[in-house]
């Protein structure tokens, strides 16, 4: 028995040696073999060495992303290959995590002193990270970068990643939300297709007619949550904050929420129970929804729909407002390879090569002013009316952001859920939201 035990321990030790060995041999880039020991040794060495002889010393930078996995890893690799061809002294290593866990991992890495050199942030989390001093100031690097013309970026996109006059990030991509419609159902109901000057009233009238087409057909779907709500409120001229005051309970906001709730109450939009666990996107593909308000990221998923469909800019009420979901990229304040990391991010966000790869792959859209970059994107069908994606930028609004963003979203979402369930009226839900948001601002 004892002998066998020792044999077993011996075998385990051999496997350990083997896996440690293969671990180092499979990694191609020279800097990668023992990443963290290398990191500690470079921190031990004076950081000035890199600055004095930039072309000579090859560096490996770590880039952490959520938007590339699982569908766009090949596209990211292609961009990196193009970057490394131009910058032979820099090797980019990619790390990914699913969006739901991305920020826990990033925070642990930053707290643990193992922050990636460059990483992706969505607009909502950007404010939090920038105000906590975890991001490097890019202003001086951008100012001394002769090959950069800041006007290649959409001005509003660049400003979104500027906090109190300091540029902490570069705009990487944006995404927006449109009104999608099922042409077959519109034809069956004898309705005209949506136009750009549609208003809420037109949308609702059409949705009512569409809902009458059958028992398992509904006219319209839009999620009733934080994201849809601040935009719908903006379409009614209401915003969560006005001059530093919380104004989420203003009549225009209440009216907007009531408008959203009415769709469900009047049976035009399916309830969660009626959906039975099927996602809204899947219901649209199944031909059960006449219209759906959802993101342009659903284009590829809707390609499999067995009916013709198209898109239109969302209707507004007193004004038009559309989503501007922006992702940006930033350099870690702790990184000792900030210059190389900045060079990669500049290439990644603004070079025509990277933009072309991104556009061709429909991996969101770059925030660049050169319209010719979008040609290949606009040529793809469906939807035929794809140019409304760019048109939506004219009405783009950024989400309301506070430092305790996640808590605000959770609070608003919980209250909206109770309003959908009929436990609170629109007025009550938003009055309570105001109280809770004010508590978060203290």
């Amino acid at each position, binding site marked *: 028995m004892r002998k066998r035990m020792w044999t077993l321990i011996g075998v*385990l030790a051999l496997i350990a040696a083997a896996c440690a060995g293969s671990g180092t041999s499979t990694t191609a880039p020279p800097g990668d073999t023992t990443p963290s020991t290398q*990191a500690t040794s470079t921190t031990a060495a004076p950081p000035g060495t890199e600055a004095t002889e930039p072309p000579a010393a090859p560096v490996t930078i770590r880039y952490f992303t959520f*938007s590339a996995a699982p*569908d766009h890893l090949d596209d990211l690799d292609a961009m990196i290959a193009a970057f490394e061809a131009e910058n032979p002294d820099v090797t980019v*290593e*990619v*790390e990914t995590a699913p969006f*739901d866990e991305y920020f826990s991992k990033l925070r642990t890495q930053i707290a643990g*002193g*193992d922050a990636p050199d460059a990483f992706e942030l969505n607009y909502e989390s950007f404010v939090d990270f920038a105000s906590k001093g975890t991001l490097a100031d890019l202003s001086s690097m951008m100012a001394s970068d002769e090959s950069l013309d800041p006007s290649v970026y959409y001005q509003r996109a660049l400003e979104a990643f500027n906090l109190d006059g300091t540029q902490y990030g570069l705009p990487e991509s944006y995404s927006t939300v449109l009104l999608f419609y099922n042409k077959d159902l519109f034809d069956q109901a004898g309705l005209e297709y949506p136009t750009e000057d549609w208003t809420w009233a037109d949308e609702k009238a059409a949705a009512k007619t569409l809902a009458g087409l059958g028992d398992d057909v509904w006219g319209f779907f839009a999620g009733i949550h934080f994201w849809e709500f601040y935009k719908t409120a903006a379409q009614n001229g209401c915003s969560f904050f006005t001059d530093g005051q919380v104004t989420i309970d203003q009549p225009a906001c209440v009216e907007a929420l009531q408008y959203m709730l009415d769709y469900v109450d009047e049976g035009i939009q399916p309830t969660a129970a009626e959906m039975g666990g099927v996602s809204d996107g899947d219901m649209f593909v199944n031909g059960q929804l006449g219209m759906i308000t959802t993101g342009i990221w659903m284009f590829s998923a809707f390609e499999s729909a067995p009916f013709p469909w198209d898109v239109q800019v969302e209707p507004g009420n007193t004004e038009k407002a559309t989503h501007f979901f922006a992702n940006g990229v930033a350099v870690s304040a702790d990184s000792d390879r900030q210059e190389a990391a900045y060079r990669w991010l500049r290439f990644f966000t603004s070079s025509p090569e990277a933009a072309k790869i991104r556009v061709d792959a429909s991996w969101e859209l770059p925030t660049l002013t050169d319209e010719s970059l979008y040609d290949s994107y606009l040529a793809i069908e469906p939807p035929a009316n794809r140019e409304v994606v760019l048109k939506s930028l004219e009405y783009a609004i950024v989400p309301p952001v506070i430092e305790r963003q996640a808590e605000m979203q959770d609070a608003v979402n919980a209250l909206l859920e109770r309003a959908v369930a009929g436990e609170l009226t629109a007025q009550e839900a938003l009055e309570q939201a105001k109280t809770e948001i004010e508590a978060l601002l203290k």
Partner: protein
Amino acid sequence: MHALGWGLLTVAAATMVFPFAWSVSTSLQTKEALLRIPPQLIPESPSLDSYRELAQVMPLGRIVLNSAIVTLFITVLQVVTSAMAGYGLARFRFRGRHGLFLVYLGTLMVPFQVTIVPLFILMRWFGWINTLQALILPGIASAFGVFLFRQFFLQMPAELEEAAALDGAGPWRTFWSVAFPYARPATATHGILAFMASWNAFLWPLFVARNENAMTLPVGLASLHGRYETDWNLVMAGSVIAVIPVIVAFAVVQRHMSPELLVGGPR
């Protein structure tokens, strides 16, 4: 009465098996077939395409190997350290053994979220981020395992040890030849728990792994979830691969967990 019992058991078994059957069925269908209404439990044209695609989108072999290595080490080491510590606490009289045991139990109360950043810093200090060692080392000791084995060894008849002592066995020999074999049901129970916990572990491996060097199966599967949509056939194919070792482990170990072995004694 008999028929009723069978009936109830059949319903219970069907309820348990149904989710698994559905994941197997989902993994054998194409993405398009999944959206059909009503959903099909038995696929019209089953195919292994999901499994092939899964192997293309991630280095599946490497990831499964990582999971297997980590799980094997953690399970074996955790059982050995728990059995030894439990034996020591149960059968040796030394000053402070009760206090020591309470400290062990106390660690069960500390949530993992509290220790995760210090542990991460420690692993970084060792230079072990993105290595399998960083996944294995924090898992080799288990306070619950110590507790389980201690309770088991407390019930062990003293005659067994006395007989070993008469044959001239020292404490080391007594542990390996008498006590540890006696604790087979505890070994089986804790072994399967440790196996499942480390095979399914997600948060810590997610934080430690940077790439496929240290990526385990649950982390790999999570990476299939897109921000906006998910290919469920791929996720289910991965889940089926992930659940097979657990079923096999149960089938193998179940025999040793049978209740009559829990009341062994001098024979």
